[in-house]
């Protein structure tokens, strides 16, 4: 490949920043600079296309390969970086459309559930109370399961594969855990309204959207953070994990000051048509409510504050946004985010040169995520890394199913979600706010490998479980995918190592062959 260069029109980014929320990321003509990747002019061969697919999408499939071939790598990458709204295949879209989380706004959902919880608690009869509480818990479980199913369907079948990968990346970066509180009811909306729309947009918008989402405020306890009753949890993680990175120069005093800035930023479950709480007129001006988000001035510390060596000058929510601006624009944030993106997409130890170039783009574009990614995709480091990044469990499971069943839409995502759980990376299940690790050393342990081989067998020998709609129905015959017939597999075969080909030759049945292929060292990488 020739020397590559990022081509991002930086001239119009100032305008973009203003309109980003109203559709900047929808592509040409919207005012946002289109992020493009500079690629070699020579046509790329099938093997190279597969390598790109395996990195930019959730895993190569024959259908996506055909799409890429039709469009050409350059235009396809531009579409990936600048996605337009796109429907899923009918059979997948219908599943998503039927979900409660697709049909009911989150504030209605959460307020109704809160009423259900209170009604259950108020029941005088202990047995009735127990049953009602159980029903409440089951409804929460069902809602978080819907969110998992929706995520999986989109990851498997969305034409906007990069956006889906970035949605997972940011969900992990801004991790919340559904086991806390009522987060099971909030998680679908957190992903759909706070994360996905900004996954390739401007980092500052993404940061602001997570701060205004009840899932984050509940998870990191900021809903409890009030003047003179400080809770530092969110303030600390906001600097350590979301923006600057640990060891980048902020102090314990900064954590405490940011916690004061964040006092009053919280969640309300009062009915949407209820008036704001009564308070002094001077304070009432500062009151903010949007959906479940509430800034309550009565809980806010109005004293003077200093963050990272400079005073905060605004008041009320303006103070919070000022703090976020400062954090989002800090050079440490550009480096921290760029490095994490490079770890996710390029290498466990990305070169400092690459990270610096990405950080430079990030800074010059005022935190345009697609622009930083374009710099990365255009780099020689990226091309050289193709095929050498170890798949984490979510990548491994999704890639296996995409390869095995291509665009044939699964009817039952539960087995796939179960495989992901078994490998230790359940969706929305990481307990602590740091998110799952992204490096090979975290996932290539002895126990993990054994589990992966069992999952390879589950997909390879019994994959029809994905098409069984209820547990009573018999599995279709044959119960395994026709992997050897897949165009993507046939294209990949010549690139497999001698030991892998020897194993495939040892297979005693098609199920065996599938299992060995999916268990092979080559399939562990993307």
């Amino acid at each position, binding site marked *: 490949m020739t020397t590559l260069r990022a081509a991002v029109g930086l001239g119009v980014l100032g305008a973009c920043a203003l309109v980003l929320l109203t559709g900047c990321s929808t592509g040409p003509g919207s005012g946002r600079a289109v992020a493009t990747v500079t690629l070699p002019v020579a046509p790329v061969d099938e093997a190279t296309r597969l390598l790109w697919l395996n990195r930019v999408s959730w895993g190569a499939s024959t259908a996506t390969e055909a799409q890429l071939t039709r469009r050409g790598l350059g235009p396809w990458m531009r579409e990936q970086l600048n996605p337009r709204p796109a429907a899923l295949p009918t059979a997948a879209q219908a599943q998503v459309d039927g979900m409660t989380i697709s049909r009911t706004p989150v504030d209605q959902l959460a307020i109704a559930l809160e009423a259900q919880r209170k009604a259950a608690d108020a029941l005088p009869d202990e047995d009735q109370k127990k049953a009602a509480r159980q029903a409440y818990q089951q409804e929460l479980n069902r809602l978080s399961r819907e969110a998992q199913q929706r995520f999986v369907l989109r990851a498997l079948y969305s034409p906007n594969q990069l956006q889906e990968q970035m949605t997972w990346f940011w969900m992990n970066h801004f991790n919340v855990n559904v086991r806390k509180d009522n987060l099971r009811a909030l998680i679908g909306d957190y992903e759909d309204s706070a994360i996905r729309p900004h996954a390739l947009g401007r980092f500052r918008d993404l940061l602001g959207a997570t701060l205004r989402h009840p899932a984050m405020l509940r998870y990191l306890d900021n809903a409890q953070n009030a003047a003179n009753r400080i809770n530092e*949890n969110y303030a600390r993680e906001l600097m350590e994990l979301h923006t600057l990175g640990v060891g980048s120069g902020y102090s314990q005093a900064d954590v405490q000051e940011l916690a004061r800035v964040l006092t009053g930023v919280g969640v309300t479950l009062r009915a949407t048509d209820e008036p704001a709480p009564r308070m002094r007129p001077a304070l009432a001006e500062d009151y903010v409510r949007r959906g479940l988000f509430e800034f309550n001035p009565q809980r806010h510390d109005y004293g003077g504050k200093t963050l990272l060596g400079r005073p905060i000058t605004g008041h009320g929510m303006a103070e919070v946004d000022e703090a976020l601006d400062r954090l989002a624009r800090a050079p440490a944030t550009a480096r921290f985010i760029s490095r994490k993106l490079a770890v996710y997409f390029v290498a466990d130890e990305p070169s400092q040169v690459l990270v610096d170039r990405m950080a430079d783009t990030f800074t010059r574009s005022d935190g345009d995520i697609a622009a930083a990614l374009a710099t990365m995709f255009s780099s020689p480091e990226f091309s050289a890394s193709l095929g050498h990044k170890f798949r984490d469990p979510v990548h491994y499971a999704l890639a296996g199913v995409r390869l095995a069943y291509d665009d044939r839409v699964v009817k039952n995502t539960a087995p796939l979600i179960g495989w992901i759980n078994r490998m230790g990376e359940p969706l929305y299940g990481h307990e602590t706010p740091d998110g799952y690790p992204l490096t090979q*050393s*975290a996932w290539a*342990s002895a126990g993990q490998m*054994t589990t992966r081989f*069992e999952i390879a067998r589950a997909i390879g020998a019994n994959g029809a479980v994905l098409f069984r709609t209820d547990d009573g129905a018999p599995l279709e015959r044959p119960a395994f995918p026709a992997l050897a017939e897949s165009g993507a597999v046939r294209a990949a075969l010549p690139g497999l190592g001698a030991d892998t080909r*020897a*194993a495939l030759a040892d297979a005693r049945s098609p199920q065996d062959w599938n299992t060995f292929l999916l268990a092979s060292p080559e399939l562990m990488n993307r």
Partner: protein
Amino acid sequence: MQRRHLLKLMGAAPLAGAAGRLMAAPAAGNAKLLVVFLRGAYDCANLLVPIASGTTDDFYRSARPTIAVPRPGQPNGALPLDAHWGLHPALATSVMPLFQKQQAAFIPFAGTDDLTRSHFETQDSIELGQALDRGRDYRSGFLNRLAGVLGAGPLTAVSPMAFTDQLPIALRGDAKAANMALGSVGRQAIDARQSKVIEAMYRNTKLAQPVVEGFAVRDEVQRAVKEEMEAASRNAMTSKGFELIARRMARLMRERFDLGFVDVGGWDTHVGQGAGTGYLANRLEELGRGVAGFAEEMGDDAWRDTVVVVISEFGRTFRENGNKGTDHGHGTVYWVLGGGLAAQAGGRVLGEQVELSQANLFQNRDYPVLNEYRAVFGGLFARMYGLSPAQLDRVFAGVAPRDLRLV
């Protein structure tokens, strides 16, 4: 003489004896170590409760108006350990009996000098066990370096195992280490022939060792769980949660592994942590049952040669926050348990201590660290395994061991 079983490794060599490498006695493989990592920084001030009447007690209670554990003798009150410290009542039937048998000890004011108060940074830095002021090698955890030293020295072969679904940083490195979570052990899907074929596929890759080790451990765990099922049919085993895992760990460590690691999460109590009862009490109760179950399942002989150390990344603020919880602090309390704890250690609260007062709080906020973890572990390793200063230096470079005469 409770020490003899652990000290038999050392022969006549004194601590940090010149020989370092000790005679390859038949019993040389008996010493076993399990490290339990409480992730999330548990509130040690409610594990070891300050009970000295007067200013200390007043200070504790005024700093914790809603979450202080009640005084000894009151309902759900602390269980006195000595004149200064009481134990959380949730451990009354699990750890307290071990303490009374001189098989448990506590080291308050323990931890690392890392001051970020970040869970993740501090967990990593403890597991790495490297100096803070130099570049880090993320591929070298302290338990792995210990395994390396032991494998080449006092023990002819050491078999480390993490009972976790990911290999923890503490066990990453050159010495081979296995891992497998024991919470749910499934049916074996890959048969012996397929295992061989898969091993052959990986023989020339960097993953060859974890693949082979993974199959071997899978077979061991399957066997142990099968035994457990058989035992259960005679003598119904009702344990679940961490206790079930701990009992399985004990079976595996008794028979196969010398060096174990497990982690337990859920300790980050910023909100509503409770006092003598409540959220934290429930977590402690489950942990205590697990530790006691582990000791019981090991059986007297193996337990005498075993040391369990319970650690956490840091402690929490001494004062409760605005939400009846606690925020990130500094020093914490380590637990040391074992059937062969030394007479001068078992049933005691050990290490350097300071009176609890506002003036003695670190940054007017939390416990200071007076017993640095690498020094404490270094002292323990020297005694358990008879390591020489040079060998200890390979585990914790540049750290002088602190001998608390634990075993």
